[in-house]
């Protein structure tokens, strides 16, 4: 269950009783390890929930916190602290993997903000076919036809250079479309990070649509690459 994007609730440190932000892994006052009470991934790193982040700083902080959580440091600690160090390490690893990847970071933050992305809305009974990349349907269908033809030819032990050529051209085109989506996503990041609630809602809607389109394109490209590389 994902937390929502709300400011962290202060909790008291189990050791020194000084209140701190609930997603801090170590008490800022007495430096004792804290149980993972589950703030969002950004606050685990002391970062603002933004899409533009300093990934170098993220990596440095990940290494620093990983060292502080190393089991060797808890060899003589209480059972609770040992357990927390493992749980915190798991949380930190998940958080790092999610935040360092631009796409996963975007999906994560949008989900935190209540967006439904990808498979989550796929099974729903809905009328919203506007999500389909209607502008690409013709090309997508054509491409699928060519892929099928190519696989058939391969099965028969034949190679059709013309088909190979046209698939390679299609791949180039779809690679370009993917790149375009990524550029558009990054442009929305800035709107999100700088914007007020209203601007964020708009950016969020746009990004959810872009992520859908991206998923569609990358699935297709995976098929093309598999067929070309086979």
């Amino acid at each position, binding site marked *: 269950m994902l937390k929502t994007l709300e400011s962290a609730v202060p909790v008291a440190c189990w050791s020194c009783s000084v209140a701190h932000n609930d997603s801090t892994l170590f008490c800022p006052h007495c430096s004792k390890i804290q149980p993972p009470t589950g703030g969002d991934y950004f606050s685990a790193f002391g970062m603002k929930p933004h899409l533009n982040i300093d990934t170098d700083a993220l990596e440095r902080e990940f290494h620093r916190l990983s060292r502080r959580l190393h089991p060797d440091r808890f060899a003589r600690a209480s059972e609770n602290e040992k357990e927390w160090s493992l749980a915190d390490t798991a949380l930190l690893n998940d958080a790092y993997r999610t935040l360092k990847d631009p796409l996963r970071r975007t999906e994560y933050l949008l989900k935190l903000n209540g967006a439904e992305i990808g*498979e989550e809305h796929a099974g729903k009974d809905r009328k919203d076919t506007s999500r389909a990349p209607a502008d690409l349907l013709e090309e997508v269908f054509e491409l699928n036809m060519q892929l099928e033809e190519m696989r058939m030819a391969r099965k028969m032990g034949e190679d059709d250079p013309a088909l190979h050529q046209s698939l390679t051209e299609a791949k180039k085109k779809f690679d370009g479309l993917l790149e375009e989506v990524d550029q558009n996503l990054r442009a929305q990041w800035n709107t999100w990070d700088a914007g007020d609630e209203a601007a964020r809602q708009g950016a969020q809607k746009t990004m959810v649509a872009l992520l859908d389109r991206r998923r*569609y394109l990358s699935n297709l490209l995976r098929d093309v690459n598999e067929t070309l590389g086979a």
Partner: protein
Amino acid sequence: MAYSDKVVDHYNNPRNVGTLDKSAQEVGTGLVGAPECGDVMRLQIRVNPETQVIEEAKFKTFGCGSAIASSSLATEWIQGRTVEDALAIKNTDIVKELSLPPVKIHCSVLAEDAIRAAIGDWKKKNGVAETAPAAATSAH
């Protein structure tokens, strides 16, 4: 998750796979897609201009077994029906017939959309007014 026998049957022996001449006056083409799973479905109909009966339906679907079965069943059902009768087919009918699980309902939605798109294309080509807006916009 196991596919129902009917899905497997349509998947192994899809009815009416093929292509109709897209440029022909009496042919309507519907092309629809679902971005989540990457399915694309093309459904074509050839309509008798006198009787408005769908005399032939063909499909080609790239997608999962349920998407193929849904469109195969759709072509089977609309052949021999008038255009207006074909519009009465609901995705829930397809779900029921094929025993589709909830995660595959969108395949049946796609098939219904494909029928509507093909008929819409045929109507546009032949200057037939969009009748029965209630049926065309009703929720799935």
